[in-house]
């Protein structure tokens, strides 16, 4: 019996986790009228968790994660429209699309400074935006890709108007991807990622092939974002240019920051809080949502990100970064 058990213990599911997930899966049944929102939250949470793999576990600042969301969305939508309407196959298509794009883009983010990376990730997303805009015979351009009809899930469950089936679908996919990500993060591979995040120089000096690790994670995260995009297109029956917008990329970074970077549940928590806040505030001042978001960000950063979840530190002088 070694004292190394705590390491393995870290990887074990805490008691509250299965409860949380069961509760989450029950919500579309318990809150039938809100199934659409639940669906949205699940999709956005998946998107945020995928970004956490990059931002939280490797430290790379990416402002272009929406590229994969959008690419997955359009791929799945086009697939459903022109090839076959089965949702699961479409999900696979979206995921593969995101993965391929991620592999390609990962070549660009390996070198350079933080600023370079921000620029490149932003630029790549903007290019995709322009492409989707200009290739309007394929993508519907500024009007978006309409008329995407999705067949029944597993051949049996029709996507109903309430959105219940959609919500369950998204929640299950979220759960599966989350479990995958969780495994990854607690594995030796995940540990090397944290090493790269904490001290890239030393990681190299102990034999970790840093660049290849970064590429692999980036590609994986992109695939997951692609899955989120596919879910988005499939459950809304629609794909539009705003999936590639700067706002999307900025929103998801914010969600992650709210929920806490680097612990996977941060993406989920952040998505829930963000969506709820958005609906509440947008109900009051729809036009100026961005102002409050901006103010929130400024205050958050000035006060110190880690203190957000520790209200007792809000008014003390010391502590924080």
């Amino acid at each position: 019996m070694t004292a190394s058990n705590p390491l393995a213990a870290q990887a074990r599911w805490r008691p509250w986790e299965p409860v949380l997930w069961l509760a989450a899966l029950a919500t579309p049944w318990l809150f039938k009228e809100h199934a659409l929102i639940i669906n949205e939250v699940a999709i956005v949470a998946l998107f945020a968790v995928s970004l956490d793999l990059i931002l939280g576990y490797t430290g790379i600042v990416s402002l272009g994660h929406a590229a994969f969301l959008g690419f997955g969305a359009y791929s799945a939508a086009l697939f459903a429209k022109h090839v076959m309407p089965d949702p699961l196959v479409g999900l696979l298509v979206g995921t593969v699309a995101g993965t391929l794009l991620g592999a390609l883009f990962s070549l660009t983010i390996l070198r350079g400074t933080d600023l370079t990376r921000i620029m490149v990730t932003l630029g790549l997303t903007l290019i995709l935006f322009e492409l989707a805009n200009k290739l309007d015979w394929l993508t519907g351009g500024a009007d978006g890709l309409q008329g995407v009809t999705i067949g029944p899930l597993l051949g049996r469950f029709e996507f109903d108007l309430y959105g219940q089936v959609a919500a369950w679908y998204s929640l299950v996919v979220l759960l599966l991807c989350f479990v995958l990500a969780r495994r990854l993060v607690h594995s030796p591979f995940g540990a090397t990622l944290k090493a790269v995040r904490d001290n890239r120089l030393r990681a190299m000096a102990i034999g970790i092939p840093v660049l290849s690790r970064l590429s692999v994670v980036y590609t994986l995260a992109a695939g997951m974002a692609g899955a989120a995009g596919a879910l988005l297109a499939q459950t809304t029956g629609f794909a539009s240019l705003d999936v590639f917008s700067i706002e999307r990329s900025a929103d998801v970074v914010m969600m992650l920051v709210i929920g806490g970077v680097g612990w996977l549940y941060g993406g989920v928590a952040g998505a829930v809080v963000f969506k709820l806040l958005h609906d509440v505030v947008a109900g009051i001042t729809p036009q100026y949502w961005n102002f409050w978001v901006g103010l929130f960000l400024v205050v958050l950063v000035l006060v110190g990100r880690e203190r957000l979840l520790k209200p007792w530190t809000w008014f003390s002088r010391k502590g924080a970064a």
Partner: protein
Amino acid sequence: MLTILFDGIAYGMLLFILAVGLSVTMGLMNFINLAHGAFAMLGGYLTVALMQHQGLPFLACLPIAFGVTALVGAVLERTLYRPMYKKPHLDQVLFSIGLTFMAVAATDYFMGSQQQIIQLPEWLLGRTEWFDGALGMGHYRLFIIAICAALTVGLQFVLSRTRFGSRLRASVDDPRVAASLGINVNLVFAATFAVGSGLAGLGGALGAEVLGLDPSFPLKFLVYFLIVVAVGGTSSITGPLLAALLLGIADVAGKYYIPKLGGFIVYTLMIAILIWRPHGLFSRLGGGK
């Protein structure tokens, strides 16, 4: 074709004046300030307001745009920005995007979301044709080039010939050593930030007619400013100058010759350059992370 070149140069010089403050701030304080475009917007709207409500002539508005924006920059630097210098880049990005969102929403609220029109004075309108029309030089663009060129020369002079310039360069190279030499680094930072913001404000005023002015200006042009800084590097001002000129010409030429692809060309070019030279086209080997 020469006209395209001319227009591209005018655009590029304008972009340079707009972005040079951002470049120096990045190089000096290692701070990614994505809110830089908001200062430009401030200068633009200020000019519009002064011209429309106070009836001030255009030329008089330009130094005011510079001065007021510089002042705002100085105040913000002292109060909001200074605690941010030591924070990680992610925090800086979040902070400056937050500021930008606030500025955009506030402008939309107070000034409305429509395009602002600037009535240029008579003598700036018009166009001179050379070589039988092969080169058409709009007077306003000529004016822009002249002002920006003068400013560039002035900046270069200040940087290389004055004491402030050498203090600035020392602080960029190594703030700690500069401080131990008795250079008031805080003052250098504040002054530089103020001037950089002031120039952005001036650029916003100058550019309102050429680039358009509405509340989405900071976000729309953010990418261009960042391109200038990323490609031009932060260790000189000639780097961003050349990058801005390159960008200006490429954008104008691209939009003219292949309108279908539009801004596409510029983004692709930027990505290609950054992949080839991750530290920018003109910087010496690496600074920063």
